[in-house]
Protein backbone atom coordinates (compact mmCIF):
# COMPACT_ATOMS: atom_id res chain seq x y z
CA UNK A 1 0.00 0.00 0.00
CA UNK A 2 2.81 2.43 0.93
CA UNK A 3 4.55 1.59 -2.32
CA UNK A 4 1.37 2.37 -4.27
CA UNK A 5 0.98 5.74 -2.54
CA UNK A 6 4.65 6.56 -3.15
CA UNK A 7 4.31 5.74 -6.85
CA UNK A 8 1.13 7.83 -7.09
CA UNK A 9 2.91 10.75 -5.39
CA UNK A 10 5.84 10.33 -7.78
CA UNK A 11 3.54 10.42 -10.78
CA UNK A 12 1.54 13.43 -9.55
CA UNK A 13 4.76 15.26 -8.70
CA UNK A 14 6.20 14.57 -12.14
CA UNK A 15 3.01 15.87 -13.82
CA UNK A 16 3.07 18.98 -11.63
CA UNK A 17 6.65 19.69 -12.73
CA UNK A 18 5.58 19.54 -16.39
CA UNK A 19 2.43 21.58 -15.72
CA UNK A 20 4.34 24.44 -14.13
CA UNK A 21 6.88 24.30 -16.96
CA UNK A 22 4.03 25.04 -19.36
CA UNK A 23 2.33 27.47 -17.00
CA UNK A 24 5.50 29.57 -16.73
CA UNK A 25 5.19 30.08 -20.48
CA UNK A 26 1.46 30.90 -20.18
CA UNK A 27 0.84 27.68 -22.08
CA UNK A 28 -1.21 25.54 -19.69
CA UNK A 29 -3.69 24.94 -22.53
CA UNK A 30 -1.01 22.86 -24.26
CA UNK A 31 -0.33 20.81 -21.14
CA UNK A 32 -3.98 19.75 -21.04
CA UNK A 33 -4.06 18.79 -24.72
CA UNK A 34 -0.95 16.62 -24.57
CA UNK A 35 -1.87 15.14 -21.21
CA UNK A 36 -5.32 14.09 -22.41
CA UNK A 37 -4.08 12.72 -25.74
CA UNK A 38 -1.24 10.81 -24.07
CA UNK A 39 -3.51 9.45 -21.34
CA UNK A 40 -6.16 8.35 -23.88
CA UNK A 41 -3.58 6.44 -25.93
CA UNK A 42 -2.08 4.85 -22.80
CA UNK A 43 -5.51 3.86 -21.43
CA UNK A 44 -6.52 2.28 -24.74
CA UNK A 45 -3.26 0.31 -24.76
CA UNK A 46 -3.66 -0.78 -21.15
CA UNK A 47 -7.28 -1.82 -21.74
CA UNK A 48 -6.37 -3.89 -24.79
CA UNK A 49 -3.51 -5.47 -22.83
CA UNK A 50 -5.86 -6.45 -19.99
CA UNK A 51 -8.50 -7.87 -22.28
CA UNK A 52 -6.07 -9.92 -24.35
CA UNK A 53 -3.68 -11.16 -21.64
CA UNK A 54 -5.89 -11.07 -18.50
CA UNK A 55 -2.88 -9.66 -16.70
CA UNK A 56 -2.25 -6.34 -14.97
CA UNK A 57 0.51 -3.90 -15.76
CA UNK A 58 2.89 -3.25 -12.88
CA UNK A 59 2.62 0.55 -12.91
CA UNK A 60 -0.13 1.83 -15.24
CA UNK A 61 0.57 5.46 -14.39
CA UNK A 62 4.09 5.01 -15.72
CA UNK A 63 2.63 4.27 -19.16
CA UNK A 64 0.31 7.27 -18.90
CA UNK A 65 3.32 9.46 -18.10
CA UNK A 66 5.41 7.98 -20.90
CA UNK A 67 2.62 8.60 -23.42
CA UNK A 68 2.32 12.18 -22.15
CA UNK A 69 6.06 12.68 -22.72
CA UNK A 70 5.76 11.33 -26.26
CA UNK A 71 2.82 13.64 -26.99
CA UNK A 72 4.71 16.70 -25.78
CA UNK A 73 8.11 15.78 -27.23
CA UNK A 74 8.08 18.51 -29.95
CA UNK A 75 7.76 21.06 -27.14
CA UNK A 76 11.10 19.81 -25.77
CA UNK A 77 12.54 20.40 -29.25
CA UNK A 78 10.94 23.87 -29.31
CA UNK A 79 12.14 24.96 -25.87
CA UNK A 80 15.54 23.33 -25.70
CA UNK A 81 16.48 22.86 -29.35
CA UNK A 82 14.88 26.01 -30.79
CA UNK A 83 13.12 23.89 -33.43
CA UNK A 84 9.74 25.24 -34.52
CA UNK A 85 6.80 22.88 -35.00
CA UNK A 86 6.22 21.24 -38.37
CA UNK A 87 3.43 19.10 -39.81
CA UNK A 88 5.49 15.89 -39.52
CA UNK A 89 5.55 16.33 -35.74
CA UNK A 90 2.03 14.92 -35.73
CA UNK A 91 3.77 11.54 -35.46
CA UNK A 92 4.06 12.42 -31.77
CA UNK A 93 0.44 11.56 -31.01
CA UNK A 94 -0.88 14.39 -33.18
CA UNK A 95 1.18 17.05 -31.45
CA UNK A 96 0.23 19.83 -33.88
CA UNK A 97 -3.26 18.95 -35.07
CA UNK A 98 -4.58 17.69 -31.71
CA UNK A 99 -5.01 21.32 -30.60
CA UNK A 100 -7.58 21.98 -33.31
CA UNK A 101 -10.19 19.38 -32.46
CA UNK A 102 -13.68 20.97 -32.28
CA UNK A 103 -14.46 21.79 -28.66
CA UNK A 104 -10.72 21.95 -27.98
CA UNK A 105 -9.57 20.52 -24.63
CA UNK A 106 -13.09 19.87 -23.37
CA UNK A 107 -13.55 17.35 -26.17
CA UNK A 108 -10.31 15.64 -25.15
CA UNK A 109 -11.52 15.70 -21.56
CA UNK A 110 -14.74 13.89 -22.50
CA UNK A 111 -12.82 11.31 -24.57
CA UNK A 112 -10.40 10.82 -21.68
CA UNK A 113 -13.27 10.23 -19.23
CA UNK A 114 -14.81 7.67 -21.60
CA UNK A 115 -11.56 5.73 -22.07
CA UNK A 116 -10.87 5.95 -18.33
CA UNK A 117 -14.33 4.54 -17.58
CA UNK A 118 -13.78 1.65 -20.01
CA UNK A 119 -10.37 0.94 -18.48
CA UNK A 120 -11.82 0.89 -14.96
CA UNK A 121 -14.72 -1.32 -16.08
CA UNK A 122 -12.31 -3.83 -17.61
CA UNK A 123 -10.09 -3.66 -14.51
CA UNK A 124 -12.98 -4.42 -12.12
CA UNK A 125 -14.18 -7.24 -14.38
CA UNK A 126 -10.70 -8.74 -14.50
CA UNK A 127 -10.41 -8.35 -10.74
CA UNK A 128 -13.70 -10.19 -10.21
CA UNK A 129 -12.56 -12.84 -12.65
CA UNK A 130 -9.38 -13.44 -10.63
CA UNK A 131 -11.32 -13.62 -7.35
CA UNK A 132 -13.75 -16.15 -8.82
CA UNK A 133 -10.86 -18.17 -10.23
CA UNK A 134 -9.11 -18.17 -6.85
CA UNK A 135 -12.30 -19.40 -5.14
CA UNK A 136 -12.64 -22.22 -7.62
CA UNK A 137 -9.00 -23.15 -7.12
CA UNK A 138 -9.31 -23.24 -3.32
CA UNK A 139 -12.52 -25.33 -3.53
CA UNK A 140 -10.86 -27.88 -5.76
Amino acid sequence: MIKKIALLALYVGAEIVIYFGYNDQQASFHWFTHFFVGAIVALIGLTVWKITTHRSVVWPLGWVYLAHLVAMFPDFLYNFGHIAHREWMDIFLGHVSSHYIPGRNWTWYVLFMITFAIYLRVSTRENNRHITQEKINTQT
Partner: protein
Amino acid sequence: MNKPYAIGLWLGVGIILAGLQFIAQASYSRQDNPDQANQRPGFVTTHPEKAPIIDGVSYTLRPTLIIFDRNPIPTKIIQNQAKQTLISDRATIILVTKSDIQQENLSGVKKILNDRDQAIARKFNFDTPTDGGYPVGYAVVDSKGFLRYRTLDPSYSQHRDGIETILKDVK
Protein backbone atom coordinates in the same frame (compact mmCIF):
# COMPACT_ATOMS: atom_id res chain seq x y z
CA MET B 1 -10.30 -3.04 -7.74
CA ASN B 2 -13.95 -3.20 -6.72
CA LYS B 3 -16.79 -1.30 -8.38
CA PRO B 4 -17.47 1.44 -5.74
CA TYR B 5 -13.75 2.23 -5.59
CA ALA B 6 -13.57 2.45 -9.40
CA ILE B 7 -16.58 4.79 -9.57
CA GLY B 8 -15.13 7.00 -6.82
CA LEU B 9 -11.78 7.12 -8.59
CA TRP B 10 -13.41 8.01 -11.91
CA LEU B 11 -15.47 10.80 -10.37
CA GLY B 12 -12.53 12.15 -8.36
CA VAL B 13 -10.18 12.31 -11.32
CA GLY B 14 -12.92 13.84 -13.48
CA ILE B 15 -13.70 16.57 -10.95
CA ILE B 16 -10.03 17.43 -10.38
CA LEU B 17 -9.24 17.68 -14.10
CA ALA B 18 -12.37 19.71 -14.87
CA GLY B 19 -11.56 22.04 -11.97
CA LEU B 20 -7.98 22.50 -13.16
CA GLN B 21 -9.22 23.36 -16.64
CA PHE B 22 -11.62 25.98 -15.27
CA ILE B 23 -8.82 27.49 -13.15
CA ALA B 24 -6.48 27.59 -16.16
CA GLN B 25 -9.13 29.27 -18.31
CA ALA B 26 -9.82 31.85 -15.60
CA SER B 27 -6.12 32.75 -15.56
CA TYR B 28 -6.04 33.82 -19.22
CA SER B 29 -5.59 37.55 -19.73
CA ARG B 30 -8.25 39.73 -21.37
CA GLN B 31 -5.74 40.39 -24.14
CA ASP B 32 -5.27 36.69 -24.80
CA ASN B 33 -6.81 34.82 -27.68
CA PRO B 34 -10.11 33.29 -26.55
CA ASP B 35 -9.11 30.29 -28.66
CA GLN B 36 -5.87 29.25 -27.00
CA ALA B 37 -5.10 26.78 -29.80
CA ASN B 38 -4.24 29.78 -31.96
CA GLN B 39 -2.05 31.53 -29.42
CA ARG B 40 1.67 30.86 -29.89
CA PRO B 41 1.10 27.58 -31.73
CA GLY B 42 4.83 27.39 -32.50
CA PHE B 43 3.88 26.20 -35.97
CA VAL B 44 5.46 27.99 -38.94
CA THR B 45 3.19 27.54 -41.91
CA THR B 46 4.63 25.91 -45.01
CA HIS B 47 1.71 27.17 -47.15
CA PRO B 48 2.00 30.89 -46.53
CA GLU B 49 0.06 33.76 -48.01
CA LYS B 50 1.60 37.03 -49.19
CA ALA B 51 2.06 39.47 -46.33
CA PRO B 52 -0.11 42.60 -46.38
CA ILE B 53 1.51 45.66 -47.92
CA ILE B 54 2.37 48.42 -45.47
CA ASP B 55 3.39 51.85 -46.72
CA GLY B 56 7.10 52.41 -46.24
CA VAL B 57 7.91 48.82 -45.31
CA SER B 58 9.94 46.48 -47.50
CA TYR B 59 10.04 42.80 -46.59
CA THR B 60 13.04 41.90 -48.72
CA LEU B 61 16.55 40.77 -47.71
CA ARG B 62 15.74 39.45 -44.23
CA PRO B 63 12.76 38.36 -42.14
CA THR B 64 10.61 41.03 -40.55
CA LEU B 65 9.21 40.83 -37.04
CA ILE B 66 6.17 43.08 -36.72
CA ILE B 67 5.12 43.66 -33.13
CA PHE B 68 1.62 44.94 -32.43
CA ASP B 69 0.95 46.56 -29.08
CA ARG B 70 -1.52 48.97 -27.47
CA ASN B 71 0.78 50.88 -25.15
CA PRO B 72 4.31 49.59 -25.54
CA ILE B 73 6.64 50.92 -22.91
CA PRO B 74 10.35 50.96 -23.68
CA THR B 75 11.24 48.66 -20.80
CA LYS B 76 8.82 46.09 -22.16
CA ILE B 77 10.44 46.08 -25.57
CA ILE B 78 14.00 46.03 -24.27
CA GLN B 79 13.40 43.93 -21.18
CA ASN B 80 16.30 41.69 -22.05
CA GLN B 81 18.89 43.62 -24.00
CA ALA B 82 21.02 40.60 -24.93
CA LYS B 83 18.09 38.68 -26.36
CA GLN B 84 16.83 41.81 -28.10
CA THR B 85 20.14 42.01 -29.92
CA LEU B 86 19.85 38.38 -31.03
CA ILE B 87 16.38 39.02 -32.40
CA SER B 88 17.38 42.21 -34.20
CA ASP B 89 20.36 40.33 -35.68
CA ARG B 90 17.95 37.87 -37.24
CA ALA B 91 15.16 40.21 -38.31
CA THR B 92 14.07 43.74 -38.98
CA ILE B 93 11.82 44.77 -36.10
CA ILE B 94 8.84 47.00 -36.74
CA LEU B 95 6.52 48.18 -34.00
CA VAL B 96 2.91 48.97 -34.81
CA THR B 97 1.02 50.72 -32.06
CA LYS B 98 -2.04 52.77 -31.27
CA SER B 99 -0.16 55.05 -28.91
CA ASP B 100 2.48 57.74 -29.35
CA ILE B 101 6.00 56.55 -28.68
CA GLN B 102 9.45 57.94 -29.43
CA GLN B 103 11.80 56.00 -31.69
CA GLU B 104 14.88 56.82 -29.61
CA ASN B 105 13.44 54.97 -26.64
CA LEU B 106 13.36 51.67 -28.45
CA SER B 107 16.50 49.68 -28.98
CA GLY B 108 16.60 47.45 -32.03
CA VAL B 109 13.31 48.68 -33.47
CA LYS B 110 13.83 49.92 -37.01
CA LYS B 111 10.50 51.61 -37.52
CA ILE B 112 7.45 52.61 -35.49
CA LEU B 113 4.13 52.85 -37.24
CA ASN B 114 1.10 54.54 -35.80
CA ASP B 115 -2.09 52.58 -36.20
CA ARG B 116 -4.77 54.65 -34.49
CA ASP B 117 -7.42 53.55 -36.95
CA GLN B 118 -6.30 49.89 -36.64
CA ALA B 119 -5.93 49.63 -40.41
CA ILE B 120 -2.60 47.78 -40.27
CA ALA B 121 -3.78 45.34 -37.60
CA ARG B 122 -6.89 44.59 -39.66
CA LYS B 123 -4.75 43.83 -42.72
CA PHE B 124 -2.91 41.16 -40.73
CA ASN B 125 -6.22 39.61 -39.74
CA PHE B 126 -5.39 38.79 -36.13
CA ASP B 127 -7.92 36.91 -34.05
CA THR B 128 -9.90 39.24 -31.79
CA PRO B 129 -8.64 39.26 -28.18
CA THR B 130 -11.08 38.37 -25.41
CA ASP B 131 -11.64 42.05 -24.58
CA GLY B 132 -12.27 42.91 -28.24
CA GLY B 133 -9.49 45.51 -28.28
CA TYR B 134 -6.38 46.14 -30.36
CA PRO B 135 -4.29 43.00 -30.86
CA VAL B 136 -1.13 42.56 -28.80
CA GLY B 137 1.21 40.09 -30.43
CA TYR B 138 3.41 39.72 -33.45
CA ALA B 139 3.70 38.55 -37.02
CA VAL B 140 6.73 37.20 -38.85
CA VAL B 141 7.21 37.79 -42.57
CA ASP B 142 9.99 35.97 -44.44
CA SER B 143 12.48 37.60 -46.79
CA LYS B 144 10.29 36.75 -49.79
CA GLY B 145 7.36 38.64 -48.34
CA PHE B 146 5.27 35.70 -47.14
CA LEU B 147 3.44 35.82 -43.83
CA ARG B 148 4.77 32.78 -41.94
CA TYR B 149 3.58 33.27 -38.38
CA ARG B 150 0.99 35.38 -36.58
CA THR B 151 -0.11 35.22 -32.99
CA LEU B 152 -1.65 37.21 -30.20
CA ASP B 153 0.76 37.28 -27.28
CA PRO B 154 0.26 39.88 -24.54
CA SER B 155 3.48 38.64 -22.89
CA TYR B 156 5.62 38.73 -26.03
CA SER B 157 8.46 40.51 -24.24
CA GLN B 158 8.81 37.49 -21.93
CA HIS B 159 8.79 35.05 -24.83
CA ARG B 160 11.94 36.09 -26.64
CA ASP B 161 13.18 32.49 -26.87
CA GLY B 162 9.97 31.55 -28.66
CA ILE B 163 10.28 34.48 -31.06
CA GLU B 164 13.87 33.55 -31.75
CA THR B 165 12.87 29.95 -32.48
CA ILE B 166 10.34 31.14 -35.05
CA LEU B 167 12.83 33.54 -36.63
CA LYS B 168 15.44 30.80 -36.82
CA ASP B 169 12.98 28.76 -38.87
CA VAL B 170 12.05 31.60 -41.22
CA LYS B 171 14.58 32.70 -43.80
